[in-house]
């Protein structure tokens, strides 16, 4: 990838800045060849890769080096975008929002600082991957569980900072204290860590006064150098009710059935239900099912259901904890479900620690159209209400059909809200199809906005569109976010444009790709 300079920075100034970075980090850790830039492009790019092209990357190995990098960046007005491992596929990978931004790759800060079995937490540096933490827990026989996303190749810290989630729940809600660097270089510890000898840093979330952790999550106010994260104690037993529903309209009763169970804590984590398509996208190619350019027709659905022995909707009701409590809760669950259906579901009893661990296997779904591919997700948050969920599904599926794409929807119910992840797969070299994806995505944002549902997280290319849909009082939240941004980051060097938050220096870039 050829060099694209940050807006307003001359080639000569940029060279001087890179030389100054090299004095701080050593030449080896200033990555600025065409080949280096290539490795930070968004491999799933739903548009043009050049829209989010980094000018290079910097790889510090200590907090002091990050501080020194910030000093240079402020002096030369070089925008930096922190990544922990940069495997944020579907949302932008290792790429920045604004082309010409330099990636601050924290992959070399990769220490597992502490894992505490008794109180159930870990303290991690950003470069620790899901595989690393998993290996550490297994090698040291520590009976704690970790939430693992479908793509296990990323960073535990990076994922939590994106509000990533897994069936165990929203990972950002397990954050309990951080060490952060402000854009101007001050080192801060949040929560109880704000005491120099704070003993309850990873144990009590809030400390005294305002709570900062969630300001940092999905924001561009700080660089996280250490993160305290709660890990769940391993369960004694687990019972899974294997749910297969044969008709699309059954989503409604299912949502009504599980919502109160989740709300009362009978079911734990996020109760997930997903459409038939996800059984097919990983192990097979689309061409095995259908050759047409429009959406896969309904006649194919029974074939997929038969081959993979799945329903139209598929999910699991998971009970985990003490085995006698699980058995008692199982009766509640089956009684509740029986109020809505005569269907019997398979019940699987197993140990509490049956997680297979992190995997990269699901990544191959991008091969669905045969060549190299990608996906983005449209994921609005809505009330946990059967009728509304059913309508949301039907409206969304009609939109997929209108734009000739294959519907793949998943609903995650936490008892109060439902997050509806809509996976949109495309071939990366099919410009015409990617244009349809863009139109679908914008239509979905508009539809959800009309209903009063907003996205929980989005791809770089849509951050401004989604931020614009949070529009109460003429976007007063965005204005507040940007006032805070300007106060904390006067030169606007940290992740300009992240989640639609633009610093003064780059505000003219809003909406531009």
């Amino acid at each position, binding site marked *: 990838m050829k060099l694209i300079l940050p807006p307003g920075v001359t080639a000569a100034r940029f060279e001087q800045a890179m030389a100054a970075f090299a004095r701080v980090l050593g030449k080896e850790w200033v990555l600025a060849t065409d080949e280096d830039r290539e490795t930070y492009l968004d491999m799933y790019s739903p548009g043009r890769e050049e829209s989010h092209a980094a000018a290079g990357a910097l790889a510090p190995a200590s907090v002091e080096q990050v501080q020194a990098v910030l000093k240079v960046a402020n002096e030369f007005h070089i925008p930096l975008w922190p990544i922990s491992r940069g495997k944020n596929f579907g949302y932008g990978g290792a790429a920045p929002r604004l082309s010409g931004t330099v990636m601050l790759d924290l992959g070399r800060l990769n220490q597992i600082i502490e894992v505490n079995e008794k109180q159930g937490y870990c303290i991690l540096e950003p470069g620790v991957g899901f595989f690393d933490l998993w290996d550490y827990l297994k090698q040291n026989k520590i009976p704690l569980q970790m939430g693992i996303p479908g793509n296990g190749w990323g960073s535990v810290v990076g994922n939590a900072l994106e509000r990533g989630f897994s069936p165990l729940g929203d990972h950002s809600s397990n954050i309990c204290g951080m060490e952060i660097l402000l854009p101007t270089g001050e080192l801060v510890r949040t929560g109880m860590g704000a005491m120099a000898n704070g003993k309850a840093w990873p144990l009590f979330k809030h400390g005294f006064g305002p709570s900062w952790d969630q300001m940092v999550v999905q924001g561009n106010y700080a660089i996280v150098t250490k993160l305290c994260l709660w890990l769940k104690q391993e369960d004694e037993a687990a019972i899974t009710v294997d749910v297969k529903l044969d008709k699309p309209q059954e989503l409604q009763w299912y949502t009504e059935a599980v919502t109160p169970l989740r709300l009362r804590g009978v079911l734990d984590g996020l109760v997930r239900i997903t459409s038939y398509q996800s059984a097919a996208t990983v192990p097979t190619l689309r061409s095995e099912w259908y050759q047409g350019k429009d959406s896969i027709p309904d006649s194919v659905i029974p074939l997929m259901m038969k081959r993979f022995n799945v329903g139209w909707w598929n999910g699991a009701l998971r009970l985990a904890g003490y085995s006698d409590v699980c058995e008692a809760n199982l009766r509640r669950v089956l009684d509740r479900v029986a109020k809505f259906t005569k269907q019997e579901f398979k019940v699987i009893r197993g140990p509490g620690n049956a997680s297979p661990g992190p995997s990269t296997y699901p990544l*191959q779904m991008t091969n669905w159209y045969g060549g190299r591919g990608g996906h983005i997700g449209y994921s609005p948050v809505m009330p946990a209400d059967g009728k509304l969920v059913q309508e949301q599904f039907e409206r969304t599926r009609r939109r997929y059909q209108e734009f000739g794409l294959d519907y793949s929807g998943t609903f995650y119910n936490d008892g109060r809200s439902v997050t509806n992840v809509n996976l949109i797969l495309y071939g990366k070299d099919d410009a015409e199809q990617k244009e349809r994806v863009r139109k679908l995505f914008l239509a979905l944002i508009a539809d959800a906005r009309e209903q009063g549902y907003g996205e929980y997280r989005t791809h770089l290319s849509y951050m401004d569109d989604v931020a614009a849909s949070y529009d109460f009082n003429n976007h007063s939240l965005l204005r507040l976010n940007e006032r805070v941004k300007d106060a904390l980051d006067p030169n606007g060097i940290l992740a300009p444009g992240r989640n639609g938050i633009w610093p003064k220096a780059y505000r003219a870039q809003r909406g531009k790709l």
Partner: protein
Amino acid sequence: MRAASLLLLSVLPLAALGAQTPAQLAARGQQAFAHRCGMCHREGGTGTFILARRLGADKSLLEKRTDLQPLYLRTVVRWGIGNMPRISRVELPESDLEAVTAYLTAPKGPAAP
């Protein structure tokens, strides 16, 4: 220009590692492979699966291949191929790429790892 810089880069670190025997280098490469490639390129990994689709099962496991060339390896790793993501120098420094290359291109006798 691109080919020349590729060549230069692949020669330099080897010289720097001059003290290591090929066997030591390959052993280090095996570790780096396990840590940085294994999650996709051993049994059950997505690399293995997609390579089986494209090249057939007998070519799907990189550690069993005898036809991998150094320049091909580094081009795939840094520029990606098909659905394999590009891998940066932070994830896999040049010296580790050299070691992985030594490991994957080492002669495979009957007693090979």
